[in-house]
């Protein structure tokens, strides 16, 4: 009695399946159909090349600021790959490969990044939320969606994404605690990319892992090599099964790295060394996955080259379609739409005022 150790029912594991050399831990290999493996590869490659293209469009002033994802493709794609269309994803802002996997057209990403609200539209057949910028806040939405799924008796799950920085936010805490209390079918995927802008992981929290924060909520927690698509997939599979079976939520920490700038407005040279980045370059999730596919006989140099060409063509088409589409956008009156289901009287008056003003002071540029 007097001074005793409290035994905790939960424990935190670390999972890795494909190591940095692309070598497989065979007993842990998840059973993924070959065509899915190839689609996953294709999506990672597409996302990587599109990211690069966006960067060059941004440098040319053809789109605005955006957050590149390079290096993190496996960390989020591996997790959504296990989902059904009826599941929901609740992204932060660095999950482009997941968005693409779920069917978001590349054009819409360009349109969004060029400052058109139209780029935020989501087709009626996808159950995904738009990008959420206020760090940590969206995790609660996933809990609410998961709660509603359970309420409706569905065996779907809600999967939320966020970064290492987000784990410091109060909303992260409230979300995971609610998820534990209500035992909702949620999966929390933390893309621990080592940095929150200039703040390194070690200054974000004193804990050894982020996964262990699950112990504060009585939910499952696991840390995985986030540059190992198979490990992410396997952990997500386990978590999704747990969720679907009614056994509650899971926190998955994907240990990965942000290879590029935080956003195009950022200059990482101010706060991190090239040596660190270099070290992570050797852990690239795509080349590692390619080695695995090659070893399985699913992919060779030639096939990779063909894929590279195909994704470039796809990207080129998207850029052209987006630039065409954007010519027709920009009607300022759109700004008065979608504030409410029905436009309030005073807002209607403001809209009228705007139209009158446009006529009187010239329709060009600032109204403004």
């Amino acid at each position, binding site marked *: 009695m007097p001074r005793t150790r409290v035994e905790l029912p939960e424990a935190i594991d670390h999972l890795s399946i494909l190591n940095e050399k692309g070598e497989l831990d065979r007993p842990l290999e998840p059973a993924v159909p070959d065509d899915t493996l190839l689609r996953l590869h294709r999506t990672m490659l597409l996302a990587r090349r599109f990211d690069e293209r966006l960067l060059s469009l941004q440098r040319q002033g053809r789109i605005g600021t955006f957050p590149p994802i390079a290096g993190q493709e496996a960390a989020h794609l591996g997790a959504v790959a296990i989902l059904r269309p009826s599941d*929901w994803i*609740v992204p932060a802002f660095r999950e482009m490969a997941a968005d693409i996997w779920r069917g978001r057209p590349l054009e819409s990403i360009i349109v969004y990044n060029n400052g058109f*609200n*139209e780029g*935020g*539209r*989501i*087709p*009626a057949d996808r159950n995904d*939320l*738009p990008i*959420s*910028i*206020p760090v940590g*806040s*969206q*995790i*609660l*939405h*996933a*809990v*609410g*969606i*998961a*709660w*509603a*799924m359970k*309420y*409706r008796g569905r065996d779907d799950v*809600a999967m939320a994404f966020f970064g290492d920085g987000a784990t410091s936010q*109060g*909303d992260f805490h*409230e*979300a995971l*605690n*609610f998820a534990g*209390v*209500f035992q909702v079918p949620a999966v929390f995927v933390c893309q621990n990319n080592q940095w929150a802008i200039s703040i390194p992981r070690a200054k974000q929290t004193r804990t050894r892992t982020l996964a262990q924060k699950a112990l504060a909520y009585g939910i499952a927690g696991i840390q995985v090599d986030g540059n190992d698509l198979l490990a992410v997939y396997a952990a997500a599979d386990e978590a999704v099964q747990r969720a679907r079976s009614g056994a509650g939520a899971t926190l998955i920490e994907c240990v990965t790295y942000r290879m590029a700038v935080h956003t195009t407005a950022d200059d990482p040279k101010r706060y991190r060394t090239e040596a660190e980045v270099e070290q992570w370059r050797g852990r690239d999730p795509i080349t590692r996955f390619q080695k695995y596919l090659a070893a399985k006989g699913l992919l060779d140099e030639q096939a990779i080259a063909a894929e590279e060409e195909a994704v470039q063509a796809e990207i080129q088409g998207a850029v052209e379609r987006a630039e065409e589409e954007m010519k027709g956008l920009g009607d300022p009156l759109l700004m008065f*739409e*979608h*504030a*409410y*289901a029905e436009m*309030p*009287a*005073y*807002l209607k008056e403001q809209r009228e005022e705007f139209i009158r003003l446009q006529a009187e002071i010239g329709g060009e540029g600032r109204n403004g």
Partner: protein
Amino acid sequence: MAKMTMVQALNLALRQEMERDPDVVLLGEDIGLDGGVFRVTDGLVQQFGEKRVVDTPLAESGIVGMSIGMALYGLKPVAEIQFSGFSYYTLHQIENHAARLRWRSQGRYHVPLVMRAPYGGGVRALEHHSESRETFWSHIPGIKMVIPSGPRNARSLLVSAIRDPDPVVFYEPKALYRAFREEVPEAEETLPLSRSVVAREGRDLTLIAYGAMMRPTLAAAEELHRKHGVEAEVIDLLTVSPLDDALMVASARKTGRVAVVHEAPRSFGPGAEIVARLVEKAFYHLEVPVARVTGYDVVIPFFSRENHYLPGVPRIVHAARSLLAA
């Protein structure tokens, strides 16, 4: 028809909407067995079960953030924040998300949540339990800020708020929770949001108020009539934002003399917007400056002094008579 307190009328609204629509769920702190600290949800967990009347952990941002998710999925969450003084924890969820998800998704999603919270002074409460900060929510595009003033309109407005496809912040004047009873029909009643009403007709001057301030304002109008032969028109906003200015403008044009009454601090308070609208739309009819009879620009004092802070009948009558004397 039964005579009901506002608490009972709100309870009726919740019960009937829950009976009518299985998507309506309640969540908040102590709303289950405890029935809410003011008993607004009394008996509902017994009738609808813990599945639909959800006691949450103590976390306001959590309550509202989770409600946003529920609403996105198609439910109609009614979240209770125990006192409006703790609703500030939710501002980022409301401003950054609830108010914008329709807009952000260009119409694909919407957030039909209601955030209920008792607000205002006059019940001898502890610190943080008597504030009136409806301005915060009123200034946010995409949010509706509704405040009833009696049992019957509280019931109707809450029903409308629950059915409204957009996020509604619903502040309940706790001073009126049990202050008086009104006939509230069992049969369904709704009131449009974004529409104020004339609570009393008059030709000499216009008093504009809402929520708990409607009582002293109407009593002041009565006293003006009885003691001074003055006929005050009284407008009850009901929805503070989006602000319906049609009635107040019409009334101001008619009377030329207007006072606004609210318990929120004066500066940057709702009264300012009302003055601005009247200036925009009825300027040439105003005989005298619009008066603001409001809380002062201080924190409402602890309860031994709160009656000095809160506008009351003498102050409203005084303001009205000053308008007429000018």
